[in-house]
């Protein structure tokens, strides 16, 4: 009986330790605990992140980009999204844009092309939105499972809201083989 009681005590201690371990390991690490707050939306709907709004108006994909006389090819496909973005309550720029595939890989907008709209180069005043197109290079196999990510800070997106918009591309191998052009950012009037 006494032994049983001692074993019971030991079991309690082990249970307490296990509970502590479960609490400690509930979050994989600090990066996960500090992850951005997602604001999810669909194509065609306006998504309101903390400092900006964004709407994906159109999405297409192509094998190459035509920028002036240059043709930029890729081993994967170019995802081109037409966006309408605006500042909410203070002058704001969107300095981070990426696509995340179904496996969790994150492809940032290409810096082979300058994209003022989402590289921090365009500071928007509240209530005066802009439209334009951005391009992201992704592997062909990933094109069908992409979510567009937008945030206002280029270096650190943690602990702030991030717009997450599912991109309705069904098949990367069905993308246009013709080079496509990009619309430059333009004030919406």
């Amino acid at each position: 009986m006494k032994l049983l009681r001692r074993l019971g005590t030991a079991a309690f201690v082990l249970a307490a330790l296990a509970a502590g371990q479960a609490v400690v390991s509930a979050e994989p690490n600090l990066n996960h605990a500090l992850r951005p707050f997602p604001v999810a939306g669909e194509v065609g709907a306006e998504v309101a992140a903390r400092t900006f709004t964004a709407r994906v108006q159109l999405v297409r994909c192509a094998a190459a980009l035509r920028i002036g006389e240059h043709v930029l090819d890729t081993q994967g496909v170019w995802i081109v999204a037409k966006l309408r973005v605006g500042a909410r309550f203070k002058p704001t720029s969107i300095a981070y844009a990426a696509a995340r595939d179904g496996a969790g890989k994150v492809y940032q907008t290409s810096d082979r092309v300058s994209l003022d709209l989402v590289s921090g180069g365009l500071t928007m005043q509240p209530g005066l939105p802009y439209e334009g197109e951005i391009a992201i290079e992704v592997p062909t196999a990933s094109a069908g499972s992409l979510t567009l990510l937008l945030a206002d800070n280029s270096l650190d997106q943690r602990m702030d809201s991030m717009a997450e918009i599912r991109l309705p591309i069904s098949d990367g191998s069905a993308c246009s083989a013709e080079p496509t052009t990009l619309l430059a950012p333009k004030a919406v009037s």
Partner: protein
Amino acid sequence: MRGPDSLGRGWWRRNLWGLVALLPMLALMLAAAGYSDLEFWQRGKPAAVLPAADGVADFAGVRVRVAELAPTTDLKRGGDRPFVVPDNMTAWRVVLDIEGPTDPKQVPFCSISIEDTAGILYADQPRELSSARIPFGNCQPDNSPVPAASGRHQTVAHFVTPRGVDIAAVRVFFGGVDQTRYVRFDR
């Protein structure tokens, strides 16, 4: 200790008040921890410094006054061609009178923004006016439209807001002198 004590009280009985106090103490602990975070966060926001009754703010070593805050349409491109403000927006002009050190190098840099009646902020040098010829509204004498004399000069800043928005205040921030406060001129 197991079983009843000398007064015949069981475990639950003996620890009754401790158990009752547990929940309020936990709540108190969480509130204290949260309060310190909240207080820290609020201290991080710049505080507004208001001008005296005559409209002049004495701050960062200069005396500042709003001489003009109004919509403007007479903007110019290069070569004196008129700049037409797009239909969906209003351009605003803010002129500050500044009185400060006679040595222009001692005049602190400032940044100016305007705040609408809903508390929304707009910044100087907006992209919408990038092809208009507008000065830097940075409080420096060399950008003054009137010649600087005995420490007095002006600084002019331009803004755009959506049409129909009304401006409630001008904020002047001397980041090189004070990061925690700004001067706020209510309209």
